């Protein structure tokens, strides 16, 4: 047996993940994105505390006599037509939007990865069937389908996660399947097989780590799409329902009064755009960092 321990000490190698992190760190836009998302996530989840102690208003506290006012000392971002503080609603809405984004992405991730992995790994006739099913689902007009789902099952927020997730998993399944098939063919897997390693061990020890890269990238890119999707559903009246509020709802309400009370559109719009920007840049950065083929040195 070759003594590998002595050889390992001469050169300080870096693992795949350390390399990737290095590349990511060099990408300024991606790091900016990461920072923004983290700050937002912290703010959003701490929003009940912030609303109570710093702002002083809660997201559903109405003040009918006051009505909509422009940003001032009491209401830092102004109020909406029912006199509710915009900053409080923005933070609360952010919480809901990010949660929808996260949960729906997790749903689509779970379904997509399991589905794609099975199809890719087993291959053959099963794979053909499963991919044909994906083709069928791709051809369904998403809008009608989600409307039917929401109408059929009622409008609660859990259903929203499921409905959006159920539509997003298709691309994930395709990517995972493609990746699994590519990895399956590689020599080290054949070698492991030849060495007699059990299938489960091959899957978990060798194939799954290679999937993580594309999955992370795609998941990061799915979250903004989900948030946009939710805002579109709000436009139709099917998104998050009262008493909850999300950025989609705030933007829709703001777009309706764009000329009269521009702050109601501006702040939620900028906030949402900033978040989506950040997530997209982060996702791009991750893709550049984790894509082994893309590195040219």
């Amino acid at each position, binding site marked *: 047996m070759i003594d590998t321990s002595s050889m390992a000490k001469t050169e300080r190698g870096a693992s795949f993940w350390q390399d990737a992190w290095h590349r990511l760190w060099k990408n300024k836009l991606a790091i900016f994105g990461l920072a923004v998302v983290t700050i937002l996530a912290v703010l959003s989840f701490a929003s009940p505390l912030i609303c109570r102690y710093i702002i002083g208003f809660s997201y559903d506290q109405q003040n009918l006599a006051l009505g909509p006012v422009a940003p001032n000392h009491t209401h830092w971002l102004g109020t909406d037509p029912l006199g509710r503080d915009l900053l409080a609603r923005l933070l609360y809405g952010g919480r809901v939007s990010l949660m929808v984004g996260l949960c729906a992405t997790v749903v689509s991730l779970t379904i997509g990865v399991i589905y794609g992995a099975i199809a890719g790994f087993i291959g053959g006739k099963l794979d053909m069937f499963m991919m044909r099913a994906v083709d069928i689902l791709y051809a369904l*007009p998403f809008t*009608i389908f989600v409307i039917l789902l929401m109408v059929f099952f009622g409008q609660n927020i859990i259903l929203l996660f499921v409905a959006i997730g159920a539509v997003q998993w298709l691309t994930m399944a395709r990517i995972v399947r493609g990746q699994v098939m590519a990895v399956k063919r590689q020599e080290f897997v054949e070698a492991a097989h030849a060495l007699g390693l059990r299938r489960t061990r091959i899957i978990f020890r060798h194939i799954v780590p290679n999937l993580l890269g594309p999955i992370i990238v795609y998941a990061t890119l799915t979250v903004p799409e989900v948030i946009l999707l939710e805002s*579109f559903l709000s436009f139709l009246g099917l998104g998050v329902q009262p008493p909850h509020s999300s950025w989609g709802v705030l933007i829709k309400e703001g777009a309706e009064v764009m000329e009269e009370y521009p702050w109601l559109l501006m702040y939620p719009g900028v906030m949402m755009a900033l978040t989506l920007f950040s997530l997209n840049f982060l996702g791009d950065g991750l893709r550049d960092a984790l894509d082994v083929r893309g590195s040219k040195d």
Partner: protein
Amino acid sequence: MFRYITRRFLETIPVLWIIATVTFFMMRLAPGGPFDAEKQISPEVRARMEAHYGLDKPLFEQYLTQMKHLLHGDLGPSFKYPGRTVNEIIADAFPVSLELGFEALAVALVFGLAAGMVASLKQNSAWDHVPMSLAMAGLCVPTFVMGPLLISAFALHLDWFNAAGWYFPRDRVLPALTLGAYYAAYIARLARGGLLEILNQDFIRTARAKGASMRRILFKHALRGGILPVISFLGPAVAGLLTGSFVVETIFGVPGLGRYFVTAAFNRDYFMVMGSVLFYAGFVVALNLAVDVLLVWMNPKLRFE
């Protein structure tokens, strides 16, 4: 090639059948029906109307009848618009969506490819970051915000256009821009990514070393390969573009198909929903096929997969 196309074509039939079945049962089982109205109709009138359209028969019998009609290409009558058939409505609205879709596609391709090419040539410079950030804006601003913003700026304040409507050639501009923005952004990013992948390869470096200009390299070598991801994306995207966007059509008052898709579901206009779904599905399937054929033609390697 011919056999491939025929095989794919035949494969679409079971696909469409499954879609039709799923749509049928989902629509029928949803609460609320086409004849529910704020001023409720009497039970006798309701019974009569349901009998007229065959809605009083057992569900499975209705399903079979509908399938039979579909095979003949008869999409049935509309409940919301008595006197109109679904075929008629689609034939009337589709050309509008088609025109809008093409114009939006043109906007998307022109701006997207231009931005993507420039960005890939001058990677990591201002010429890269600025267009890509603008492209990001196209992806991150929902159409129901972008549309009113454009209208407010160009129609209401600058008075260059009408606020809505589809009557004059000028009316096409703002809707096409709004609808195309999202796709332009996507195409820009895809083109940049695809082109970068090619441009960083060795044979390009060789060409540059040999003295070829960037423009020649771009158009002669890189574009062909770099376009591939764009084309893959275009398939389903074009289906969405051409069948109309509900949001853009609502905001700009365009009498296209997109609005019918959504309102039909809300109105429980059963045959209209089925017709819309199948029309859209057929489109997607056809476009996917076209895209696959195009990809195979452009990249002979794929033929053996």
